[in-house]
């Protein structure tokens, strides 16, 4: 009642219809961290998509005559022990990392959001039982679960997507459920209930729009974890199969030679780290900006 931010008067200028996109853009613009983070991610996505245009080297063609070269005009980041251009492999490497991560994260969030919202809205025994089961799933180390699934079903992008969904859905459900629980007691949800709206309508119209920020932040953060996890899997030999250009695999392949051809290991590490930093910054910035945004818009 006495905070200074509550506007004493409504903004005098007519406010344009606030479409979701415009709002999101405003949010992004308002946070430097989010802008930088999303820019980094965008650059990574662009590079992955345009990789064939950016390099003329085939990322998987062996060339024994050119093995283990240092950086040169022909090979900016040198070559690995098969004579493959490291830069080309790093550029193409984003395809696997980003493709699988995004797919895995999307699947995870989709399932997690639906289940989380349902748990928050339905409550009761459904929520209780679900909570128990999720806790039980969470109690098994994710690496073990991943390894078991990948060993059982074989490596391959779709299996990894599935495995990551199994491992991360419980955590997403928790987060989304928490966010939805904050929305469910809100009077506008109560109003919808009093109108007798269906559960699905309440979910779609009232709850989802109010947790999109949480879901977006969760997406960025979760994606950063997934990128790391997938690279770890590749590193352990459970992820991408050679000669797929993949950053984790590249590090695994080249780390023993790091003193001789440091770029072969460093380049994928840098690519990996910048992508994850970008995702984390985006997650950070967005969560902060959305929090700030609400205060600024005066609610």
């Amino acid at each position, binding site marked *: 009642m*006495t905070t200074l931010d509550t506007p004493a008067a409504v903004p005098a200028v007519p406010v344009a219809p*606030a479409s979701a996109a415009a709002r999101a853009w405003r949010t992004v613009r308002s946070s430097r961290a989010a802008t930088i983070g999303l820019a980094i991610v965008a650059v990574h996505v662009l590079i992955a998509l345009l990789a064939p245009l950016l390099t003329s080297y085939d990322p998987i063609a062996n060339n024994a005559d050119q093995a283990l070269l240092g950086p040169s005009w022909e090979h900016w980041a040198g070559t690995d022990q098969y004579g493959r251009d490291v830069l080309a492999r790093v550029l193409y490497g984003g395809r696997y990392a980003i493709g699988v991560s995004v797919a895995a994260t999307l699947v995870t969030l989709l399932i997690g959001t639906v289940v989380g919202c349902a748990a928050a809205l339905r409550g009761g025994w459904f929520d209780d039982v679900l909570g128990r089961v999720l806790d039980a799933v969470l109690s098994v180390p994710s690496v073990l679960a991943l390894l078991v699934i990948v060993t059982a079903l074989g490596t391959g992008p779709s299996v990894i997507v599935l495995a990551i969904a199994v491992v991360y859905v419980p955590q997403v459900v928790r987060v989304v459920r928490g966010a939805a629980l904050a929305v469910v007691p809100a009077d506008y949800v109560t109003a919808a209930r009093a109108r007798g709206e269906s559960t699905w309508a309440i979910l779609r119209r009232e709850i989802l729009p109010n947790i999109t920020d949480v879901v977006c932040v969760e997406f960025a953060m979760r994606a950063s974890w997934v990128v790391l996890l997938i690279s770890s899997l590749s590193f352990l030999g459970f992820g991408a199969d050679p000669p797929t250009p993949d950053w984790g695999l590249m590090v695994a392949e080249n780390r023993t030679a790091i003193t001789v051809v440091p770029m072969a290991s460093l380049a994928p590490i840098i690519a990996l780290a910048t992508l994850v930093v970008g995702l984390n910054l985006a997650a950070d910035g967005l969560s902060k900006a959305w929090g700030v945004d609400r205060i600024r818009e005066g609610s």
Partner: protein
Amino acid sequence: MTAIVSVTELSVAYRSGGSGGRDVPVVREVSLDVLPGQTHALVGESGSGKSTVAATLLGHLRHGSRVTGGSVRVGGADVFALPARELRRLRGGTVAMVAQNAGHALTPSMRIGRQIAEAGGDVPVVDLLEQVRLPRPAELARRYPHELSGGQQQRVAIAMAIAARPKVLVLDEPTTGLDVITQRGVLDLIGALRDELGLAAVLVSHDLGVVAHMADEVTVLRSGRVVEAAATGRLFAAPQDPYTRRLLASVPRLDDEGLALVGAAGEREVRPRAVVSGDAPVAVSARDVTIDYGSARAVDGVSFDVRRGEVLALVGESGSGKSTLAWALAGLRTPSGGTMTHAGGDRPSGDTKSGDLRSGDRESGDLARPAGKRPLSLRRRVQLVFQNADTSLNPRRSVGDAVRRPLRFFGTVGSRAEAVDRARQLISDVRLEPALAERLPAQLSGGQRQRIGIARALAGEPDVLIADEITTALDVSVQADVLRLLDDLRRERELACLFISHDLAVVRGLADRVVVLRHGVVVEEGPTDAVFSAPGHPYTRQLMAAVLEPLPGVGPVVDGGENTPPTNRRKPYTQGAP
């Protein structure tokens, strides 16, 4: 006598949106002086900057705020020029603060006694607790904040503030959020202590009643600026500024015979209450309604009728079960006993006279069923307006959308285009610009949001409107507008209105009949005028006695405070609270 607190041309700005943001001024060139032993009130609506000014007395600014001009001197020291160590000594020692919400202001992980002891001073904790009239102080000192009631917490906060025997007490909305009776007790305590200890006080409040009873001097703030400053008696008797006048006029009074309408210059006109014809049909009837929360009984055997065009007020303190009853009528709680019936049907209103409902249309009008199991027509006819307009609108959807949704949902309109038109019509019905339909709730003010909440309820074309503390969160001038709107609407639409409030003065002007609830039981019921002129139940009397009105005659006589010793100026109020 020199002022102990002296604020000179103080300006404070808040930097919005991190490092790249712009400065938003929140306090502009505010000056005020407080003499020793005097109580100075800072009055204003939300966003007026009154709390910010008060906090500067302790050298405190919110994160991101800074002083852009002027100075604050307390006890002769320039607060913002003090080195850290001196500032710490000033805090508590010279000036102490009682924050708005003691529940949040006490550290949850620390025992009461230690928190008080920490504040310094030589007075034993037990003595301090006794001084704030808390029972069994020794035992209380060992408790944690959450183990105390709201009133007790506030008393502990006061004890903490006076521990080091400061010269100035800053009271930031010290009773907001407390029930009237508790509020009265706390205010009496503050008054008594002030006199006992000879404290100067700076009281921040939006409640003009509280100010009238406590302050010697009043400074009215609006948008960070001083609007008017005067001795209390003079200000209340002859406010100079139109804003002050409007503010004062907006406060509902216990003796208003109808709703007060406030003009632009602050003139006050009491509109006589609408007359409900004796043969107006009963819209809702409740009989022996009982509602349980687990093993606790929230509502116990309550009965009432509401007729078309009538406003029935449910009055009580928090925990009296009044909101529970409202939610049950709206179908959000299932009563565990009794009947609630809506006259319902499309029959001519004449058919359902005299409350003979049970024989009639019970199936379609049964309000004991949850909303989901009621027929659509019944859901449409009974609508709820929520207490807090901030949370009753979906922040992600335009307010027009919020009004359109029930229109479409209840099938009151056919096409999408019709819904748009109808929604704009409804928005203008609640006295708002239809153009606001495209805005998000966050872009509206609190009063505007509450009007939208009402418009949304009207979209179902109800004949019963349940208003659950709809003005509680609003500033007093906005409250007056919303009350007036509600009164207009029930006249225009013959709404049966169940008005729930803890504020007797608000009820007085609007309601035709009053039901007083205590612990889920009706203690008194009757026509408003009758109840107010001759309250039959002691509890009702207690409630009424606790109401503070912004009447200059009732407030303390102020004579500049120069030559009258503060200690014997006032008699402490009779203890209201247990």
